[in-house]
């Protein structure tokens, strides 16, 4: 435990250097005290309401591809063939001169000029249970509150836009439902609406005996009853419960999103779970959903890593390259920030089960789309891939980068939680300029 904590703080010292924006934060703290007096505080608000208004008018969207369990950087973005830990796979040339990626990603190699890749990622946690939430929260400084996941943060900062659909949709294998835990202190209404197994939820159509007017009338009665109940009580449960009714109503109005996919699209994205979910993700983006998370599971290859990746990578390669190409051809890529990542990479050293274990010390994150420079590769690991040479980037740097790409000033925008101003990204980190357009 002790060792772990030390590792944590030293790695941050090494990675995140206080930037100039610390000054502006102090200035903002001054402003906040005043606004607190004016009674502008509140749960999950923003310090700067004007910024908030402006952001909700933005048409930027996010496709966040979460590769759960830990994709091996050595079998994907940062191959080290013919080295001590390199494994059996070769590397192949991409459309970017001099840049090679694993032979398991031939389709992605063809669109490398559209992507921005950072091979110099160093993060802290090497366990799933801490890594998954910490990374998706951008690992902010501990201020005694639970930070929102990236999707909830974007939902809060940028709103649902004009889609009428929930701002944060999570397409995943397994169970669907409303995952309010992602929202942390922002409050349950910023949680994820999960679409499980590609299926629309059952009971999407009003009973025949009920007109739309009747439905509106009974829901108004329900809302009246909720208001009576809310007085004097903790609002958390009630708001989460009400929100799922609103989401249900919005989905009922957009049933077509779940109609059978076009066979041409299936061919393009791959007839796989990830292909199917990526396709649903694209439709959700088309319908205007602000933030779509597409989830792939099963990447924790402690045993038989190479067969595992030989089977997993082609599915990722096809679905990922398809969605980037598709968004580009539809003219949506300029407005859609696309990110593909795990909670950490995998150990260069191959363990006794021919597997690779968890390795946050040196791994890769790829992105493209809105606000991101295309055809750029930064960061470098050493010859055996064990550690990052030179400038390592932590997840906090990426959160700054992505917020910036979405037009959110990550240094100045702050949440306001019960009167406490909270930076939206780690205040010792800063945007990675080389990745920004």
């Amino acid at each position, binding site marked *: *435990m002790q060792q*772990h904590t030390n590792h944590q703080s030293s790695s941050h010292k090494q990675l995140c250097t206080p930037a100039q924006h610390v000054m502006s934060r102090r200035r903002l703290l001054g402003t906040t005290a005043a606004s607190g007096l004016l009674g502008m505080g509140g749960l999950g608000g923003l310090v700067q309401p004007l910024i908030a208004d402006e952001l909700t008018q933005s048409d930027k969207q996010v496709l966040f591809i979460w590769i759960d369990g830990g994709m091996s950087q050595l079998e994907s973005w940062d191959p080290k063939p013919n080295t001590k830990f390199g494994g059996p796979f070769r590397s192949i040339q991409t459309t970017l001169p001099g840049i090679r990626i694993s032979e398991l990603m031939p389709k992605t190699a063809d669109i490398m000029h559209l992507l921005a890749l950072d091979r110099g990622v160093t993060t802290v946690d*090497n*366990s799933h*249970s*801490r890594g998954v939430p910490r990374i998706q929260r951008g690992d902010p400084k501990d201020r005694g509150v639970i930070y929102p996941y990236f999707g909830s943060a974007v939902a809060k900062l940028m709103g649902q836009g004009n889609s009428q659909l929930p701002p944060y949709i999570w397409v995943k294998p*397994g*169970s*669907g*439902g*409303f*995952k*309010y*835990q992602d929202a942390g202190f922002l409050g349950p209404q910023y949680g994820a*609406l999960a679409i499980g197994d590609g299926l629309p*939820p*059952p*009971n*999407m*159509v*009003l*009973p025949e*005996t*009920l007109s739309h007017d*009747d*439905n509106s*009338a*009974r*829901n108004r*009665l*329900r809302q*009246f*009853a*909720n208001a*009576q*109940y*809310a*007085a*004097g*009580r*903790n609002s*958390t*449960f*009630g708001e*989460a*419960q*009400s*929100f*799922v*009714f609103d*989401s*249900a*109503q919005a*989905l*009922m109005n957009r049933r077509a999103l779940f109609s059978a996919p076009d066979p041409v699209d299936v061919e393009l994205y791959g007839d796989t779970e990830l292909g199917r979910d990526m396709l649903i993700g694209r439709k959700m983006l088309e319908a205007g959903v602000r933030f779509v998370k597409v989830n792939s599971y099963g990447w924790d290859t*402690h045993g038989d890593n190479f067969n595992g990746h030989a089977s997993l990578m082609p599915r990722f390669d096809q679905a990922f390259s398809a969605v980037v190409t598709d968004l580009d051809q539809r003219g949506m890529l300029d407005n859609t920030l696309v990110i593909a990542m795990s909670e950490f990479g995998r150990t260069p050293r191959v*363990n*006794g089960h021919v597997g690779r*274990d968890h390795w946050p010390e040196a791994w890769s994150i790829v992105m493209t789309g809105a606000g991101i420079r295309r055809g750029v590769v930064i960061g470098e690991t050493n010859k055996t891939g064990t550690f990052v040479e030179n400038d390592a980037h932590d997840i906090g740097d990426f959160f700054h980068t992505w917020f910036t790409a979405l037009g959110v000033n990550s240094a100045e925008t702050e949440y306001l939680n*019960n009167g406490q101003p909270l930076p939206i990204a780690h205040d010792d980190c800063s945007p990675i300029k080389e990745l920004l357009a």
Partner: protein
Amino acid sequence: MTSLRISAGLAIILTAALYAPASTRGVELHTAIDRLVEDAADGKFAAQATDQEFLRRLFLDLTGEIPAPNDVAEFVANSGADKRIEMVDRLLQDERYARRMSELFNVMLMERRGTDPTWSRFLVDSFKVNRHWDAMVRTIIEPDLSNVSEQGAGYFLTKRLEKYGQNATDYPGLASDIGRLFMGIDLACAQCHDHLFVDDYSQADFQGLFAFVSNTFVRRDTGFPAIGQKVMRKPLEFQSVFGEDMFTTGPRIPGGAELEVPEYDKDNQFAVAPDPESKAPGVPSFNPLHYLSATLPSASNPRFQTNLVNRLWASMMGTGLVWPLDLHHSDNPATHPELLSLLASEFAKHDFDIKWLVRELALTKAYQRSSILQMALDDHVQKAESEYRVFREKALSPEQLMWSILKATGAKDRYPLELNDEEKLATELPTTIDEVREQFISSFANPPREPEVEFSPSVRGSLFLLNSQLVQSWVTVGGNNSTLQLLKISDSTEIIDSLYFTVLSRPATAVELKQMRGFLISQPDRADAIAQLVWALLSSNEFLINH
């Protein structure tokens, strides 16, 4: 090294268990609980819950459904000083108590993996006769297969050894579930190495537990869920993924002594020889499960003592004294350590009597507080809740929701089946209570293997309430349902008042009366209007939350 770590972690928990503060000696447990809660609190307390709020909460927790309107009326009219104690005692004797507890424990122990009629019978029978928790766990690990009411108990083990999806038989999962659900410790992350950030959880603990189940298999000869054991010939070998050294362990309960694996010659390795004719497997002379059932559920195992009191506390009070429920270790202590150790030691003194513990919890002021708190300006709702100064809202389980909606709509009579006898359970009529339950579980329950311990309302559940034919058939006039009963009342004020008693177990306030009556008289079709009103209250937060 490993053994040192175990003793350190255990010592802390043991010390806590032996400590009983002076202020709590010689009083009934519920009084002692309130003293400890109040000593640790800092801020204003919510008032006592109204009779109606208390009764609804108690009915939901002890019978699994809301009270009937006349239950509410009688309780409110009763002016006796001990009426709350009497009501607790009455409901503990109610036949629905066994149903409610069997549902609670089924969800807790099986985590929606599925169900089996013999398992359900074991649970219901256990709560009917108030089988104590240590006896229940002994039976689950080593049932008397000749006793009909114990036959299904092995389902806890056998279901976990079923293959699902592409996964291998999950022996490690079974081992860690024994740790989680009977001792409150989740050792899953200590399978391949010592836990990375829980010092108390060592790989040796996991492997010791794993050794108990590593030779088990599902029997095919019994016709009900039952487990068999192969002969264990030598201790289990394991290695940390971070090191080269090999270790061995015999079966060992975390915190306990390792069991030596004896060597038997071929002729003596079975205490009961396999029977090729009946295909019954033998019983090995060295019987790890017998040892597990004899020693895990006992007063000498401090983790066994604390686990269930923490879970029952969470069920009654809305959150555990230790949270998460299965992550008890010295770096994640109880919010109220003295309280937890008192509960644990008293539970053990009362021979792990679940009904006694539920009664004591229900009698506390902490349980009987209002869920409404007009807070001081510098107070926080989370703080008030964590100090039990206000009653914390709780989720309704899918089962509680089903029984309550059936009760409120008066549609229960359409489904004559109760979960209590085998013949009925085997029926496959299209309109059974089992089928209705399946719909509720698929709409409101978590998927298999995800514990239902947090409030997580789902869009799926909302869509079920909004659009399902089933719910619609309950709220529209039909049979002898509540909507029909309300339609028979001519006075619109009386309709609204009766509606609130029927669905929300309380009278309507003046504001509600005005609003709802206004809607009722504005509608051309009174039957439709009442159906809308019933639906709106059923779908309201007040109904969908246990408060």
